[in-house]
Structure formats: structure tokens, C-alpha cells
């Protein structure tokens, strides 16, 4: 898998480099003592801070490198592998730089931003390591354009069949197609709650009123049409109803795959909506942190 090899890129060479950096940082931190109380203000603290700041800037440059398609400065895969490992090491480097001194100030603000960026990055690593596999498994029945083409065709097919049915069935089927909910806002995409509906009405003889019913996972419309099978007025209606149920079930299966695809892709992307804006804010907070440190030296 391509995303696994992100971590195993060239025998995880960046893992070892990151570990070496962490060991060096701990060693440097431990040389503090005596009158040099561990803090960001000792010479060791300044070195750790400089390493951290350079790391942050370099890590942010992944966003530039990714878009520089013509660049031959390492592969994007290599950059991403290094991004992950050195970004993880940054958590330790910056913590050692802070020496555990936190407060309500710009310095801790920058640190918290950094932690959030790194933690969202961890979520991203997990997402990239696991979700693509689930997406391709879900694509066994076709990728998303294929699924939507099929859905479109099924809709047409069902509409044609519905026309040949009695009014209640026709209304129910066409309304179930019109009111099929796919995707939607953030929560709908992430959690895939199905707000599909259809209009349920009685037969012409019973004359009951039309009601807007829930149609989660298209199950109710299938049940509604299937329930009509044993009570078909005319023998000719039965094959039509059979076909309707068949197509509705195929449609149900296609919709399930579409929904799962949307949900998985949303989760695959979501962390970036945290990671990227916070990274940009972190760059600014970093500048403010350095500036104010030396303003009131």
C-alpha cells in the first residue's frame, strides 16, 4: 500500500533520523542545570528553540513542495515520510525547549497550536494508513462516477416502471427517488445519517391520506412496494412490481456504496481542515513568539 510505504519509506530512514534528533535533544536538555535552570532561555534552550522553529518552517514547506510538480528536490513521498517523522520529533523538541513552563501567554499559545497541528497530523497518518484501503474495498462494485452513473440509470428505469404502476406505487417510487438524500453538510457526510423520505399513500380504494415517511437506507420503500405484491389487483401488475422491487434493491445497494464512499472520503479529508489552517496560524504564532521573546528579553 502506498500509504503504508509512507512510513516505511527507504527502510524508515527518516524514523531513524527523527529518533537521532530526539536523542540529541534530550542529551542537550540534560546538560542544563546549575545556574542554567532548564528553560527556553538558556543556550541549550535557544538551540532547541532554533531547531524547533526551523523544523516548523520546513514542515510547512511540504505544502509548497507538494504543489511544485516540476521540482526534483526529493520525491513528495520522501518529503511526506520525513514530514511525519520529523513532525513527531518536533513534539519532543518543542516540549524540551519549553522545559514544561506553561502559562497564559503567546508562548504557550504557540505551543498549544503546535500540539494541535501535530495531533491532527497523527490523525492524518492514521487516516492515510487505513481509510484508502477501505475505500478501495468499497469500490469493488465500481468507483464513484460508475456508482452515480448506475444510480442515474436506475432512477430512470424505476421512473419508467413506476409510470406503469398504480398511483400509490407511482407516487411512492418517484417520491423516493426525488427525496433520496446523499451526502449533505459536514455532519451528514461524516456520519452519513440518511434523511431520505418517500410519500406513502394508501390504495385508491382505502383512500387514506398521503404521508411523508422516513426512508432510511431505502428499506421502507422496498417494504412498501414488496407488501403490495400479494395484494396485486391484477395479475399483470405482479411482474411490474417484481421488477420494481428488484431495481429498488439494486438501487439500495448502490446508494450504500455511495454513502460509504462519501463518508470515508470525508474522514480522509477532515483532519486537513484542522491541520492546514492551524499550521498557518502556527507559523504566525511562531514569529510572534520569537519577536516578543526578544522584545522583552
Amino acid at each position, binding site marked *: 500500500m502506498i500509504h503504508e510505504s509512507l512510513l516505511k519509506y527507504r527502510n524508515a530512514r527518516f524514523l531513524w533520523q527523527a529518533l537521532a534528533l530526539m536523542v540529541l535533544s534530550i542529551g542537550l536538555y540534560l546538560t542544563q*542545570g*546549575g*545556574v542554567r*535552570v532548564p*528553560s*527556553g*532561555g538558556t543556550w541549550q534552550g535557544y538551540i532547541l528553540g532554533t531547531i524547533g522553529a526551523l523544523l516548523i518552517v520546513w514542515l510547512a514547506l511540504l505544502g509548497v513542495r507538494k504543489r511544485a510538480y516540476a521540482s526534483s528536490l526529493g520525491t513528495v513521498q520522501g518529503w511526506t515520510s520525513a514530514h511525519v517523522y520529523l513532525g513527531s520529533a518536533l513534539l519532543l523538541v518543542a516540549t524540551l525547549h519549553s522545559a514544561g*513552563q506553561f*502559562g*497564559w*501567554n*503567546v*508562548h504557550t*499559545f504557540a505551543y498549544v497550536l503546535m500540539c494541535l497541528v501535530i495531533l491532527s497530523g497523527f490523525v492524518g497518518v492514521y487516516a492515510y494508513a487505513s481509510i484508502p484501503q477501505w475505500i478501495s474495498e468499497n469500490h469493488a462494485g465500481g468507483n*464513484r*462516477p*460508475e*456508482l*452515480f*452513473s448506475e*444510480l*442515474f*440509470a436506475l*432512477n430512470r428505469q424505476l421512473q419508467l416502471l413506476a409510470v406503469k404502476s398504480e398511483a400509490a406505487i407511482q407516487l411512492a417510487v*418517484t417520491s423516493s*427517488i*426525488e427525496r*433520496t438524500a*446523499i*451526502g*449533505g*453538510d*459536514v455532519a*451528514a*457526510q461524516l456520519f452519513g445519517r440518511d434523511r431520505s423520505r418517500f410519500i406513502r399513500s394508501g390504495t385508491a380504494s382505502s383512500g387514506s391520506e398521503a404521508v411523508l415517511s422516513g426512508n432510511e437506507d431505502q428499506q421502507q420503500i422496498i417494504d412498501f412496494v414488496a407488501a403490495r405484491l400479494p395484494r396485486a389487483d391484477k395479475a399483470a401488475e405482479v411482474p411490474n412490481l417484481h421488477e420494481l422491487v428488484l431495481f429498488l434493491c439494486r438501487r439500495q445497494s448502490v446508494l450504500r456504496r*455511495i454513502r460509504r464512499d*462519501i463518508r470515508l*472520503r*470525508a474522514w480522509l*479529508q*477532515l483532519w*486537513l*481542515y484542522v491541520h*492546514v*489552517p*492551524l499550521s*498557518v*496560524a502556527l507559523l*504566525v*504564532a511562531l514569529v*510572534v513568539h520569537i*519577536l*516578543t*521573546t*526578544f*522584545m*522583552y*528579553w
Partner: protein
Amino acid sequence: MDVLLREVRRRTDGTVEFHDTEFAGEVLTIGSGVGQGIQLLGLAVAAAHARIASSPAGISIACSRGKTVNLNGGETKAAALSVGDVITLASHRLQLIEAPTGFDLALEIEVDHDIDPSEYEGAFQTDLRQTWLRKRPAAWALILLTVVVFIVAPLVVVTLRSHGNVVPASIPGDGLWSSGPLSMAHQQATGSNCSACHRVMFERVRDVDCLGCHRNVADHVPEGHLALTKFGDKPRCATCHREHQEPVSHLIVADNSGCTGCHAQSPAAFGSLKVGSASAFSAAGHPEFKVHLLKPAASTPADSMDAEWKPEVSGLAGAVENSRLVFSHQQHLDAARVIRNSDSEPLDCTDCHAPDVDGKGFRPVTMKDSCVSCHELTFDPAEPTRQLPHGKSREVVIALQEYFARMFVDPDARRPATVERRRIPGRTDAESRCAGPPAACARQATTREVETQFAVRGCITCHQVIDTRSRDIVERFQVVPVRLTSDFLPNAHFRHSSHRIQGALTGSAACLSCHDAGKSRRTEDLLIPGIGKCLTCHGDQPGGIGGSLSAAASKPVNPGTSVRLGCAGCHGYHPT
């Protein structure tokens, strides 16, 4: 509104087919969703993209929020429509044509069948990018927040304050730049005003700004002395005094390295200054103590009344106390010889050496506080309430003169016969031995008593007395002033109250475990213990012991339980 929808289908052979359908309703909807009046596929076509409606003013089109259609070549959100107008949506084409009779509107629709049915996805929101989530606006918002809260607001507050304006504390000021809380004293003294210390931006806090308040702090070494060494400039105040380092206070960094940086170096580094080398509180790392003793200056005679006394530093071995007092600790601690007046118990150390209020040392030993309860200055057994004054020999003689003059001259001054002794009735001992004129008798009695007090058993018991052989009895004897050293080790703090218990020993036994007073017969004995004594309990490492010690008294109390003692445990940096 009745609408004629005419779908135009161009066949491959160039012929054109029209498929007419009718629409009746209030609003004709256009979009990619199922159930739209006109369903047009395309990723750019929203589920409900636009609506065509009729009103008395005419036919018009209005797009959903954020959507547009191309009307006669220009993008538009809403517009009035007239016959001949061409609406393009994705690559589908709709043209208003003359409506046949019975219709309000006729639309010629040319659907682009090359658009793949998969673009039906355009009818739904299937990607997070289509939701309100945005990376760029979020980033800008966070940048704005950071800059405003952490740069702009503090700068505004600092500027306002510098112009004397009062800014509510709730507004974030330059306190947001602080890397940690101040110590409470500094917090109060500066009133959280950063620029009280950080006077110049981008410059480290200057010593002069510390000394603005701490005016009485003296340098560790006079600058002239420092110039003799190879240590360069004196360190900044902030080298040892580190602010903003909470939660653990480091206002005084009392680590040995601050001292040993210089003091562990070879004497050569000190140039012409004589400074012993010290690297740790251990037998090998710390020199033996040196005591400061008061000594008569060489320029004046040692036994003179006017000797000038100066403190002199000398090694502990062979050091001799020179208090001019005659005193035996051994005798006073001998229960067989000395007991307390009040309860007839042996003396305790504290009977004479009363602890100071701060618990560090002791109040000066004085005649009044420490001696007189036993050593009364009575001189006439027949008059046990009469005491000689203490302190000035001249006053002692005058007091005796007055006493005897009155006794021989004033008949009413005669004492009641309180002493059972055989004597001439109506006469005292002194009187009974003198038969001359009263004035001569008084003088004779005075001389005899003065000689007794100064040379036989009075003052001479404890003091050094000079017999000037002067014929004037008032001037004849002079008591050499006592010079007690109050602090033998002035460059070290030692808190006696913290050391009142020595293992199992308390009270005088604890004192005697360090100060060998029980064997001291001479005033000259110096009862200050050496470093070896301290090293029985203290060392440079917690749990360790100071090093191999030769002194017998230096056996560790409990090996491995040594209490760590850093330089600052005993020594101060700034001279007081």
C-alpha cells in the same frame, strides 16, 4: 403558468427531432436533482439550480444562492427573460421561443448528451469542499486572532499606558508576552508593568534597572579586585536571579556551579588575590575553616588598656582566643563544683549562652545576664545586699570610698549586727581593727578592700587587672577590657537553632557534641569545630559523605544519609 418544453434532438444524419412536453405550475425549476422541472446533468449544475417564474411584470429567472447561469453570453444570478434569450447551463442550452397560443412560455431545450450520467453527482453535496468547511478562511481567521490578540492589543495597551492612560486589566496587555509569572515581590513592586524592568525593547534587562530598587546590594567582589583576576566582567544580576521561571521559583539560583565556576579554579586564576580553592563541601573540595579573631593591633601594647582590636583571620589549628577574660568552661560544667542557684542543678550551656531571637547565634554574654546570678559583687559579708558596680574600676573604688567613709563618720550608718561573730560591741569588723581618726580608718579600710577586690579574689577572679602602682587609689588598678568575639566565622551562616538536636543528643549534650567545652580549662581555648565535624552529617551529595576524614570526631553519623550542603547553604554571595 403553462410552459411548452421542446426538447431538440439532433440525429447523426443531421435531421432534428422535437419532443414537446407541457409543464403547468407556478415555478419551473431547473437543476440536476430528480423532480426538477427540467433535469440537467453536470457537476456544475446544483440539485436545484434556478427557477423560472411568471409575474405580471413578465417572465424572469432567479438562481439559487451562489449559483449563476449564462444568459446571452454573460453570467447572471437573476434577470428578466424575453423571447430569443439563450440560457446556457453547463453545456446545456435553453432558448426562449415565441410561445404558441395557450402557453405563457416556450423553451427550446438542447440537452448535451455527452455529459456522462456520473455527473449526476453534481446534484448532491458529496465532498467536504462543498460544505462550509474552508481551510483558507479558517487560516486567515486564526492569523487575525493571533496578530490582534498577541501583537496589536498588547502594543496598544503599552502605548496607552506609556501616555498615562488607565487601561482595564481585562484587556490583554504585554502580560501575554511574559514567559511565566513573576515572583510575588516583583509582581507587587512593578504592578505587572513589564517596562519597569524591560526598559529597552530588544535589550536584555540591565543591572542598573535592578539596582534602581535594590540600592543596598553590594558587589560580590569590588571591581578593582575583580580586575586582578582572570574572570572578566562581573556577571549580570539575571545570571543567578532568574525571573519568569515559575512554577518552580528560581529567583535565586543557588547552585554550586555559580560559585565553583570561579572558586574551583586554581589560585592562578585569581591573580594576586589570595583565595582558597573550593569545589564542593567535602574534605577534599573545601579548605579547613578559618576563624576571625579579635587581636590587639601590633602597633599597640598587647596588655594596654588602649589596645586597638582588629579582626584577624587565622587557621583553626592553633588558633588562640584572646578575650582577656579568665574563664574555665570545664569548671563551670563540672556538676561537682558548680550548680545553679535556682534549682541546684548543674549548669546548662543556655544558662550563659542565650539564643538570639533569630535562632542563628547567641546574645552576647554579659555580666548582668550570665554571671551575676552566681557571682554577686558583694564585698562585705556583713552587708550582703551591698554590691559593687560592674564595668568601671574607677566607680568601684569610689563606691568603696563612699561606703567606708560613711561607715566611719556617720554613727547612724552602722549596720545591724547580722553577722554572728565575736567583736567589740557596737563596732564592725573594720571599725574594730582601726583605732585612728575616722577619716584615716575609712581610707585604710578602702585601700584594703580595693586591694582585695582587684588583686586577690574580686575582679581578678575573672578579669586581667593591671596594677599601675599609682599612689592614687582611684587610679591604681585598671581592668583590661574584655573583647568577646561575637562571630568566629562571619563569612558563613550557621543556624544554631537548626542544629539543637544532634542525633540522640539534645540540650547541652548536643552543644557539647560540637563544642568541646567540657575539657576546656583555659579561656584561650577556641571551641569552634572544624569542617570534619560538619562532614559527619553533611556532604556535597545527598546520601553520600564528604570524603575520607582523618579526624576521629568525623565518623559519619549514619553512613549514606548525608545531608547535601551547597555553597549557598553556608555562604552568601552579596556581602552584607
